[in-house]
């Protein structure tokens, strides 16, 4: 039942918000939304405590036959791959609610969309039926599209359409792949458990996997399918960006592991070197383009592209360690990115600019934004992979895990993490360090309501950095099991 609750509770919230009698204050709506999301978050924490670490299979399953004619069933379940992401989803939605600032235009629609997004992502992560997954995967587009189109920045129209088109194409490709999988493998339904791809011919498998790769690759995004990302991230409000970058992009890597790696273990080895190459290019590309940016939000957007590349390299290497690292990186990147965008959002709201050439000296303890700057340093360093923070351990596990399979790619990734440090130092030096401009330095204060989300994220980033087993323990059984089915392939690749 818990899974269904997580899925449906936010939708109930949507109804309440939709039919709440007028006139209604923004605060009331926000409190309702917070309440529902908070309950879902608590439920996901409850799941974490109840999760059996000894079982590598899907747990808490729920199954209802829905439209058997097309093989669509109401099938839910979680494993170590999805559970941390479900928790992340709840947490980041909660954070996002508080990162738009005091005033929201059209609050009713806004909060309803928030709840919708939360429910949709949970659905996608819990779905155990390919088609059911796809419904949510596609359903997400509309609320996100509207979020960008209504509450976005200057070029919101352009950005939102670009986002919609790209991700719709992604959905189509994935759909095509899913149809092909069930069709060719002759499964009775789209249920994950029913599908067996072993019998397919190598060529079919290759084509299907490629479709999946491109489909999910757009969502991740991989270079050169990434151009929707900077525009959407920059134009969207911080809240939207947190959800976009923190969790929606993770659906891509999630899908890649769940439907690519898991369904086509033997074909994976064929595409792995190519994937590693694309991953490495993505890593380098993201880092180098980020260095050239003047807009801090755009810089972080490109940094996000780069960081997703590590996950791809890890997935390509597909060792126990690297896959564990990949999932851990999804979570830690989600946390770090959310913190970064939240802080950038605060800075933009308070100072009115995101331009590196105008920002300066925000560390000033009295007239600046000292706490924001301190946490920004923390978040930047976490993203640059400084030990003691969660970003390091995930990246390190990835590096260590991938090195035996793709040593060169791994080394290049390490170099790229040096480049990460370069642009973060540029960012921090310009925004936090230096002297405030006396003409501009009459910024409003950061409210407690804006500080709390940052604190929560920062605490998690630090805590999981020092005690990473609380991150890895949920993931490990599943990824171990996943790799166990691949082991022979690994050995083969390693020998080459």
């Amino acid at each position: 039942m818990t899974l269904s609750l997580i899925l449906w509770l936010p939708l109930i919230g949507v109804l309440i918000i939709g039919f709440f009698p007028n006139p209604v204050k923004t605060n009331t709506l926000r409190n309702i939304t917070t309440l529902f999301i908070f309950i879902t978050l608590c439920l996901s924490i409850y799941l974490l405590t109840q999760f059996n670490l000894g079982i590598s299979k899907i747990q808490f399953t729920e199954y209802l036959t829905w439209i058997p004619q097309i093989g669509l069933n109401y099938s839910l379940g979680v494993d170590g791959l999805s559970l941390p992401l479900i928790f992340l989803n709840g947490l980041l939605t909660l954070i996002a609610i508080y990162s738009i600032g005091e005033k929201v235009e059209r609050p009713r629609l806004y909060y309803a969309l928030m709840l919708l997004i939360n429910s949709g992502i949970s659905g996608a992560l819990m779905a155990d039926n390919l088609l059911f997954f796809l419904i949510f995967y596609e359903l997400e587009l509309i609320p996100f599209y509207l979020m960008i189109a209504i509450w976005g920045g200057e070029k919101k129209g352009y950005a939102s359409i670009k986002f919609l088109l790209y991700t719709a194409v992604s959905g189509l490709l994935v759909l095509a792949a899913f149809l092909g999988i069930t069709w060719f493998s002759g499964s009775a339904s789209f249920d994950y458990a029913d599908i067996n791809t072993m019998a397919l011919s190598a060529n079919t498998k290759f084509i299907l996997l490629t479709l999946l790769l491109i489909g999910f690759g757009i969502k991740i995004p991989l270079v050169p399918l990434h151009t929707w990302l900077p525009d959407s991230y920059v134009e969207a409000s911080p809240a939207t960006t947190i959800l976009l970058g923190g969790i929606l992009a993770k659906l891509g890597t999630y899908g890649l592991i769940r439907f690519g790696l898991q369904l086509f273990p033997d074909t994976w080895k064929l595409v792995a070197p190519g994937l590693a190459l694309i991953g490495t290019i993505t890593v380098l590309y993201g880092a180098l383009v980020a260095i050239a940016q003047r807009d801090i939000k755009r810089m972080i957007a490109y940094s996000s592209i780069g960081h997703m590349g590590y996950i791809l390299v890890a997935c390509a290497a597909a060792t126990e360690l690297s896959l564990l690292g990949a999932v851990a990186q999804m979570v830690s990147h989600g946390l770090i990115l959310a913190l970064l965008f939240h802080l950038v959002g605060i800075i933009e709201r308070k100072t009115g600019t995101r331009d590196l050439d105008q920002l300066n000296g925000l560390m000033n303890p009295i007239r600046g934004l000292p706490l924001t700057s301190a946490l920004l340093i923390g978040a930047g360093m976490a993203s640059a992979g400084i030990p003691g923070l969660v970003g390091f351990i995930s990246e390190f596990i990835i590096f260590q895990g991938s090195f035996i399979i793709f040593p060169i790619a791994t080394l290049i990734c390490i170099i790229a993490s040096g480049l990460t440090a370069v642009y973060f130092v540029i960012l921090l030096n310009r925004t936090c360090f230096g002297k405030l401009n006396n003409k501009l330095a009459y910024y409003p204060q950061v409210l407690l309501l804006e500080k709390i989300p940052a604190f929560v994220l920062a605490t998690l980033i630090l805590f999981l950095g020092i005690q990473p087993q609380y991150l890895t323990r949920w993931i490990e059984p599943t990824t171990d099991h996943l790799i166990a089915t691949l082991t022979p392939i690994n050995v083969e690749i390693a020998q080459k």
Partner: protein
Amino acid sequence: MTQTLTKISPSNHEFADIIHRLEAGGSMLPDTPENLMQIIGIYKAYAVPMDFYWRDLLYIAEKVFLNPLPFFKYFLPQEYLDLKNHYAGDTADLRVWRGCAEAHPELINFIEKGETIKGSKLFHHLWHDRINMEFAEACMRAMYWHGRDMGMGKFDSYLDSDEYKHNADVAIKAYFKGNPAMLGLYKLFPEMFLEQVRQLSYYSNLGLFWEVMCPVFYEMSDIYDEGGFKDVSDAMNFLVNGIFAIAGRPIYHHVYIDGKCYEIISKSKGFTWLYEAALPYVEAVFYRTSPFRGTKSYNAQAKQVPEHQKDFHYGILYADVFPVGSAGIPPTLLMDDMLHFLPDYLKEYYQKNCRGEDDQLIQLGITFQRSMYNVTSAVIQALRTALLYPLDDENPKHLMKNRQFFEAQMDRFKRPEARLKDIQNPDYR
């Protein structure tokens, strides 16, 4: 203003407006009720810690003297809290302030209770719930270090005279009587001890200077509370008169060792408050001091520190107050001292602006900057009165001399970092 302008043509100086204002008997600070309220309020907040500063400076100069490990030099003994101010109270030589001659009740209260809880002096010291004497010492060091280069008064050159060396020698030997280690060290390195005594003489100098300023500021606050000052120039003129009244106050350095007084600089040397303390103080502290380590690089290759002392312009008239509160900005100490004693009307005023209570420290810093521009105006007007001609002089040539004097003074604010332009703007806060 019109009167002067009819006699000589208007100034073409960059700060012509301000010069014309000065010629009309005004201040560099624009004359608005808001400015008046700010500067008087801050004089009050400044006077209380200053009451501590001068007592402690004298205590260090007279009693702590050459203690090599002066851990407790900021622990003012009762004797010095009760020390009678020469210019306040019933025993005053010249009564400037109507209040008592001993330490101000607000100060006593702060020493006992601090911002936290009632506790011993040691607790408050360790908890940093105290007056930041370090800043007073920094002002003293600025006067000492710039002393020779400024060439003001005769105090600095006297420190190198044989008479001074002899007096110091007697006091040093008396102080270390029965301490062969220190006496031996003195024998080896006499100059080291002498240099310390010179510095202590400046402690005394600044202490005696502030002993006068403290009641003057109290008095101004009292007059304002009684509805006394009409505008900024009233406040300035009160200062000008004060400067003249007190100009002849002797500056000396006495040391008390075992109850005996050793006159290192005796009153009979004729050093006066105006020439040997006030003018050097204004030059060294308001104008020069030294660059804040948090804003300028001391790296010799970067050439950010000027080559000559006369080019140092980092005092309160030039300082950027915005970084106050961050590392490497010494005036923070003073701002913090004043924060404890803000009058209610200033607190309310700050509450209404910028970030309210949260950035009071910077707001009051900028107020302080305004008020020090007013004090500097008073000094400039006093100098004009002493050395030049009345503002209503009939002789255009004399007025021209006055004009040249004012222009020369304003020239010092042509530097880009001078805040004269900023304080003209009421939104600079």
